[in-house]
């Protein structure tokens, strides 16, 4: 059954986020041969349409308005509703990002629709679109279907493989004019606290530190290692509670959930709440001086030793590997 599927393109610092390309791949599965339409919302975003096409969108719809220069649930839901009314899709896909989590339930409510949040895979099985999502912080998984109305889902970053980039692929861009009214929440200021560069939830490599780092200074080599590998730095709750780093870095049951290709846990004991945030990482490395630390139970590779001794060598070895490559 061919379906028309809208894919929301999330713009961050002037580019489409990776998860939007992953969302196109999810959209293709849901569409079962139907049309996948990328949606761009903002104040000057039309030039990003090509990126959508390169990753497989069949068509792109653009909504531009000066009041859409920054995300608000009121503004963006008005824009999206206008697109839905015009396109009448049978499926919608968002990234399960801060914006996606905030906006998708409101849109689902407006459409009187169900919503499957935080899917890590999507398959077409005998006419049904089946989503898999982690529950109980990844301690279990559920397969879920939509039983009535639009098939609406958000997908977790880093889990669904985007289509191969094809720079020759293109399509039609249409614009929908929307009069954005009545924003009830006004953003006065955005304070940047995260470091420039790689987003923790989208990073392919995460270097995470725990209490074993002993101080804020102890975190510095982690950033150096992350920079060498093009990754991001995370932390356990213990390290955040101890004031070694900002809570924005916290990975775990409370905190962020990450599924990078490589997770290096440095001086993290591996409390069950921490594992909830990272246990689905593809490859896990543990560095800890306590051989009994729980983190070793889920690690693919482990080094028992003093992290202050290990880290400088690790950084140098990684550097020389990168130079060779």
């Amino acid at each position, binding site marked *: 059954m061919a379906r028309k599927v809208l894919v929301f393109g999330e713009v961050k610092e002037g580019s489409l986020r990776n998860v939007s390309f992953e969302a196109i791949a999810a959209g293709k599965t849901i569409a079962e041969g139907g049309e996948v339409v990328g949606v761009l919302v903002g104040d000057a975003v039309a030039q990003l349409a090509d990126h959508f096409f390169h990753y497989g969108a069949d068509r792109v719809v653009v909504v531009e308005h000066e009041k859409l220069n920054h995300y608000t*649930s009121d503004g963006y839901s008005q824009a999206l509703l206008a697109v839905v009314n015009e396109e009448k899709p049978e499926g919608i896909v968002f990234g399960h990002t*801060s*914006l996606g*989590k*905030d906006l998708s*339930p*409101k849109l*689902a*409510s407006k459409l009187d629709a*169900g*919503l499957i*949040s935080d899917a890590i895979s999507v398959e077409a099985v005998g006419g049904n679109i089946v989503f898999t999502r*982690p*529950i*109980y912080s*990844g*301690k*279990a998984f*559920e*397969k*879920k*279907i*939509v*039983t*009535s*109305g639009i098939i609406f889902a958000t997908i977790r970053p880093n889990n669904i493989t985007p289509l191969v980039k094809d720079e020759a692929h293109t399509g039609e861009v249409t614009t929908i004019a929307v009069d954005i009214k009545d924003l*009830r*929440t*006004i*953003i006065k200021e*955005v*304070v940047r*606290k*995260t470091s420039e560069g790689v987003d*923790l*939830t989208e990073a392919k490599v995460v270097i995470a530190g725990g209490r074993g780092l002993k101080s804020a200074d102890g975190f510095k080599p982690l950033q150096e290692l992350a920079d060498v590998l093009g990754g991001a730095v995370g932390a356990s709750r213990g390290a955040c509670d101890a004031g070694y780093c900002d809570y*924005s870095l916290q990975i775990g*049951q*409370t*905190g962020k959930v990450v599924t990078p290709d*490589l997770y290096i846990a440095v001086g993290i004991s591996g409390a*069950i709440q921490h594992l909830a945030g990272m246990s689905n990482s*593809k490859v896990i*490395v*543990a560095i800890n001086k306590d051989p009994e630390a729980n983190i070793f*139970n889920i*690690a*693919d*590779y*482990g*080094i*028992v030793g*003093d992290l202050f*001794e*290990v880290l400088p*060598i*690790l950084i140098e*070895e*990684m550097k020389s*590997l990168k130079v060779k490559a």
Partner: protein
Amino acid sequence: MNIFVLLKRTFDTEEKISIANGVINEDGAEFIINPYDEYAVEEAIQIRDDHGGEVTVLTVGNEDAEKQLRTALAMGADKAVLINIEDDVEYSDQYTTAKIIAEYLKDKEVDLIIAGNVAIDNASGQVGPRVADLLDIPYITTITNLTIDGKNVSVVRDVEGDEEKIETTLPLLVTAQQGLNDPRYPSLPGIMKAKKKPLATLELDDLDLEEEDVEAKTKTIEIYLPQQKQAGKLLTGEIEEQVKELVSLLHTEAKVI
């Protein structure tokens, strides 16, 4: 100030998960107030103490959730409401829960609704924004600070680690992010007092709702546990040799760098 807190009873974060007859096995498990909802309860109590008014904690579930509601009352909430759907609703999802909560709240005088930003069991984070939409009030998710001055509200919102400073007005729904406050433990006098505080139990009938009105739009068709990870490789030798071997393994065996 009339404050409502949306609360969910969840598994304790320490609990291991097992499956029996295709569903999560709850036998013998410890249950708690969803940790993010604890922030919501604490924030509501603090706002009431500063501005006056009343805090009502509200949950949709079954009679087992009375325990978590009593805990919230012991922390300092004034009233509790349990909407018991055990006998009426076979399949529920976030659509169901939000509809029921909104139906309960629609004729109440509501200044502020506080929920957790996500429940640690199903982790959809949908119910708060859905309720706000159904009540046609603004909402702000994942907040780390809230200041109220008359009808004006200033909020700090966590956006993947960055902060947005937002201004809006009551009535409002917010969802709590970690860092909003430090939830208190119930005191012994608080626990004694909680026993006498009102806890009302309602069913769909009391809200003039039929099961069809709240019928879920999604359905779980299978629940399974992750595959047990095979034991990893603990490296040996001098630290320098271990690190070299690790880098080599990550490059050639795991192929992640």
